[in-house]
């Protein structure tokens, strides 16, 4: 099948972005990561036959495990290695995530998301309390730090007080693994920078490419940080 793919481009160091369209013939069921790889060829041209520079994008695992390739495909934030071209219309767009500064083409600088974790004390104070019933901690550990959740969140803007789900999810593991005394500072970060800012619209839930049950994370973290309930009685779903 033939596609017209319009990509929002940005030269490194420039202050201007522009759209460029490429013609692409699909071999079947490939994902957008493979599509980008194939568009990038020596002497590549755009749909009008004009010479084009290779499209820069970030990837690593190519199997939904590292969060590197998050971008906005046909208006929806997702992982390029997760999105099949067969699920896209004949004409569609690829754009970088919008809540972070663009570095080049589809590459954005997500440092702020990771710096936020540091300023919110997202680490374990003391030793973890291991328990057999650790499924929630496991689920909270799979967060990819991809930033897709921030893209759709109506309440998140970079630099604001509300830190978003990419901070809330890793916090869940730590809150569950510390006792109330150890987790005091993290709990207050949670209340101030997550609980008080989150509108609970759960727009982020359906977008998370790791399939994290955001609802469950919030319920568990709230139980510990807001209602100060003992870890071993926290909510299971």
């Amino acid at each position: 099948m033939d596609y017209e793919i319009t990509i929002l481009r940005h030269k490194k160091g420039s202050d201007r972005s522009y759209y460029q369209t490429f013609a692409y013939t699909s071999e079947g069921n490939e994902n957008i990561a493979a599509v980008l790889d194939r568009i990038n060829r020596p002497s590549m041209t755009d749909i009008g036959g004009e010479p084009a520079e290779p499209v820069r994008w970030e990837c690593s695992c190519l199997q939904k495990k590292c969060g590197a390739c998050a971008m906005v495909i046909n208006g929806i934030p997702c992982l390029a290695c997760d999105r099949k071209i067969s699920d896209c219309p004949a004409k569609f767009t690829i754009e970088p995530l919008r809540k972070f500064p663009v570095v080049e083409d589809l590459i954005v600088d997500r440092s702020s998301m990771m710096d936020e974790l540091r300023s919110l004390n997202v680490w374990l104070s003391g030793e973890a309390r291991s328990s057999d019933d650790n499924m929630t901690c496991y689920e909270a550990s799979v967060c990819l730090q991809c930033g897709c959740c921030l893209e759709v969140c109506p309440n998140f803007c970079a630099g604001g007080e509300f830190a978003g789900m990419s901070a809330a999810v890793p916090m869940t593991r730590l809150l569950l693994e510390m006792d109330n005394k150890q987790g005091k500072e993290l709990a207050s970060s949670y209340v101030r920078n997550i609980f008080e800012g989150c509108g609970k619209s759960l727009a982020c839930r359906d977008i998370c490419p790791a399939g994290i049950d955001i609802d469950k994370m919030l319920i568990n973290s709230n139980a510990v940080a807001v209602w100060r309930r003992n870890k071993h009685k926290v909510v299971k779903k």
Partner: protein
Amino acid sequence: MDRINIAGAGIAGLSAAIALAEKGIPSLLISVQPSERAQSVMAEGGINACLDTMGEHDTVEEHFRDTMKGGVFIADEDAVRSLTSHAPEMIDFLERIGVPFNRENGHVIQRNFGGQKKKRTAFARSSTGKIIMSALIDEVRRYEAAGLVRRLCHHNVTGIDIRRTDSGLSCEGLWLCDTYTDRMYYSRGHVIAAWGGMNGLFPGHTTGTAANTGRLTADVFLRGVTLSDLEFIQYHPTTVDIGSKRLLLTEAARGEGGKLFIERDRKPWYFMEELYPESGSLSPRDVVSREMYRVCQRDDCKPPVYLDMRMIDKPTWESKLSDLRSWIIYHLGTDPVKEPVAVSPGIHFFMGGIDVDKRHRTDAVGLYAAGECACQYHGANRLGGNSLLGALWGGRQAAYTAAEETGECENGEPAAVGESEGFDVTAYDAGAAEMCGILVSGLGIVRDEQTMRSALDRLDGFADAHRDDPLHAGAVLGQAMLLSALARRESRGAHSRSDHPQRDDERFGRRTYCRYKDGKIQIQI
């Protein structure tokens, strides 16, 4: 105390940073992408340690023996002893930093993995690497906040400053490039290499990330550092081609009962169970990959080989292999609960790399190496579950040695040294694909003199044609791999030769060393 440079922030780099910080030693943790993107997050199956939680009377001695035997007796015995005896301590450390391993009755539970007779592999459902990495990253963050670790993500290390002195090689620092601004810096001080395996030489053919380019391994080689055991490349038996890469179907699938078969006389033949009654489909990876290759060559068999997982029960799928099932459905459109899956071996792990001693020193003073970029612990074939362990323990060991050997001078901030010139990415990728074609033609699962010679001839031509561009260093590293494989005129572990099918302990029962001197590659076994 001097700050130590750590190049790479996967499990080995993070482990080194934590070990240094525990001793109050600052480090600069440099990686081209944040740790969340490192190959270590892809490990699924688990990490080995004798915890003896499964009622099988497992011992450290057996872990030691299985590792030596799996590596066909060329790994350093003392190093393997140290690794296996500290393994339980490493799991204990991971538990303390909150890794949610699968547990029952207050204990971490363990599963079977290839080449080991007892259940010795601790795991976190089917994302062990990711879950361990999340906890290590959180732990490093604590030290970052305390000013002991400085993380420089999106910084590409472009070269290691190794100088020849009268007393030998000496590592003085490294060059790095901020990939967001293209600005280059030089950071003085000792270096722990933790930049992962050489996947970049085999784009599209490995289960790992091509972001581990192998370029730094080539760089230090050209600067005189010894590499070893480059011919030992592990082909994982159960991978599938998904276009851009090879997708691994974890060994845990066989650990939990999955079996391989090929069609023979219109009937499925579970060849591993018949040929190796004791270990069956869960034999070491080199053995399984080789047998898969052989049955596919037989006239009475019809390729491909299938992985049959239909016998795995529902609770096991749900509690231990849930990701695996969803991967297969997503990528291949078949449900492994109902249908067998066609598989073939793919490049998965590099046993060889930078030669290190028991304490992770290289032959350049001030350069240490750990994790998959280093050659230690795994001999001729790595056992599943031993590389996360090797990277975790190795990173720690490298840090301890570096801590002892680092002096008391201030090395200050990385200094700006201009801008990177960049290079033509599409031309590089096209060249890398061509080089990969040459390398895989010579370094397949079963090798012989003639195919390796002809690959080497072509690679020599390729290296000459790329003498002045960024592909050259990789081509020299490829030549070193082929020359190592040619020199080892026997079959051992992952190195299997049809023209020398026997193991020859007398002539080859040791490591292969590889050095670059005066523009020439020298091999010594």
